[in-house]
């Protein structure tokens, strides 16, 4: 089977949707012998509205927060049937379904050791319901529930350290990636699926509507998040950092200024400094800076 037909065109994603690019890469990298379990969210809605479905692999959506648990049941059933060895199980969902309401189900899945790859498409807010803040919304970002006002400067907390939370479960594979680096995504999905046990991959996926950037800038925006150090690209196998996306750091302002969600920061050097501190911390922590 041609893998480029596994996620068919004609779905209803917005122009420039980073998640649509990401999801296509994921399933094409995984191949046809894959069962996909999807949380509720943009991806589920734009890819599977009755009577149509973009999915040409077995695909199931149950609820907002239970993909990790449904996938656990799928995996258990495959083991019972003796079919697990040649079938991949992928659970996937947005940042809200992963880091907030579905964190418990995900933690259970990781802790129980199921042979499942979980992919979190991180567009940094609850997009499907109209851009409300989630646990993965970045510091100071304006969303509809963390608006900017006389007494508010946007989201009051930094991103929940979801990759570290996943890693802390002692899983054999954890990686972050970005829709700007497609070969990296393909490699990581393939690598993850070659490893038995629970895997977690978190992918940064711009949302032009929610981030308020031009839809043709999706890949550029995603790239800037990585190049500024705001979205570290890392890969861990058995708890050891095995690869990282090295950068020649750009000032965060370059990333902030192309997005409406950060517009209120641009006139405020102190606010930009706070964001720069986050980037610097990431660069320091993972040693992202290219030598020489």
């Amino acid at each position, binding site marked *: 089977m041609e893998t480029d037909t596994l996620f068919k065109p004609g779905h209803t994603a917005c122009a420039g949707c980073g998640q649509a690019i990401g999801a296509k890469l994921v399933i094409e990298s995984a191949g*046809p012998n894959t069962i996909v379990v999807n949380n509720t969210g943009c991806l589920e809605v734009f890819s599977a509205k009755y009577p149509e479905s973009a999915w040409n692999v077995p695909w199931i959506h149950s609820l907002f927060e239970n993909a990790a648990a*449904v996938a656990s049941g*799928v995996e258990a059933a495959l083991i019972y*049937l003796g079919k697990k060895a040649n079938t991949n199980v992928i659970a996937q969902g947005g940042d809200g379904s992963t880091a907030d309401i579905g964190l418990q189900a995900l933690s259970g899945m990781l802790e129980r050791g199921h042979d499942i790859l979980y992919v979190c498409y991180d567009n940094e807010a609850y997009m499907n319901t109209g851009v409300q803040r989630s646990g993965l919304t970045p510091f100071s970002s304006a969303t509809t529930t963390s608006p900017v006002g006389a007494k508010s400067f946007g989201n009051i907390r930094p991103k929940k350290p979801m990759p570290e939370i996943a890693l802390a479960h002692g899983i054999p594979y954890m990686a972050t990636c970005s829709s700007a680096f497609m070969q990296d995504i393909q490699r990581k999905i393939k690598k993850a699926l070659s490893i038995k046990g629970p895997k977690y991959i978190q992918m940064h996926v711009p949302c032009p509507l929610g981030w308020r950037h031009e839809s043709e800038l999706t890949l550029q925006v995603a790239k800037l998040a990585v190049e500024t150090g705001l979205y570290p690209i890392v890969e861990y196998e058995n708890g050891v950092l095995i690869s990282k996306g090295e950068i020649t750091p750009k000032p965060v302002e370059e990333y902030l200024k192309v997005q409406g969600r950060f517009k209120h920061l641009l006139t405020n050097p102190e606010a930009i400094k706070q964001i720069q501190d986050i980037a610097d911390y990431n660069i320091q922590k993972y040693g992202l800076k290219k030598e020489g």
Partner: protein
Amino acid sequence: MKELLEGSRAVAEAVKLCKPGVISAYPITPQTHIVEELAQMVASGELDSQFINVESEHSAASVVLGAVATGVRAFTATSSQGLLYMGEVVFNIAGMRLPLVMTCANRAISAPINIWNDQQDSISLRDAGWIQLYAENNQEVVDFHLMGYRISEDKSMMLPVMVCMDGFILTHGMEMVDMPEQEKVGIFLPPYQPLYKLDPAFPISMGLLADPDYYMETRFAIKETLKDALQFIPKVALEFKNIFGRDYKDCLVEEYHTKDAEKVIVAMGSVCGTIKEVVDEFRKKGKKIGLLRIISFRPFPYQRVYEILKDIPRVAVLDKSVSLGAYSPLAIEIKAAFAGKKKAPQAISSFVAGLGGRDITPESIKDILRKLTQKEIDLEFIDLKPELLKESYGD
């Protein structure tokens, strides 16, 4: 073979006979013994099944959902807070037309927290699209699990079944139970043949978004299937009788001395054992008392109820749950059975008893019978303690 078994053990034995490939559950009193027994059976190799210890009931229900969607028979059990916690998934399983059997060890709902028996938990999920069968004793509990899978997995049904058993009274009660033989179970309940499943060989999408153009028909279809279930459950009960010898008639209701009765109590579950004792006692004295036991609360057998009660002068409905702000749940259904009908009892009086595990004694039943006059009672709580009602908070 008859054995003296704890109710929970009996459930586990029955489930084992049904050979689920995946079992997932989360502990909650009084359901725990059921899943502990099953865990033991899996651990010892007696039962070939994937036993998934999850972090919540939400996930327990989700795991079995995923397993059934992949084409494997599954089992879970819960109670009370656990059932409410998985409530979203409970609706989802029926909406996705996935066959499953779940045991509900009936228990009260918090607050205040209370681990004892009433039927508020399963009753609160009556609108989820599941078939709900209420057992009186542990023989029924066993048999309803077998019938549950048979009904649920039939291509004409494809809906989940909840076997409701009163917490502690049945789950922890020791009773003689005739355990069906594996060989006969194999005949009654063939291996699960999914109509649809997640399989890379034939990729399908399940759980799609249905907009206003499509949603209503899904609900209509479940409603129709549940109507058909009123015909199908009796068929399965007959098959069951033919193989195992136990006769549940239509398995929708049980009539106990209703034919000539002047007063009939309508109830569900284990309390019917107590009511039968009182009926026997009254009958000995020549008093025409009867019991109508509802087995299938969903689908609700309105027509059967109508036929049985239409000439009965006085009917008392005993609920072990409430629908706060309205009549109590069983009473609502019994009254509805007579709405717009020519014949009806003079009085359909509604009583609530046994909430949060308060004993329903033969005296409680007699109290109901005394209060069952021509004058219809809207809703009365039996065995209330007036001294506890005096506390007030400010003026």
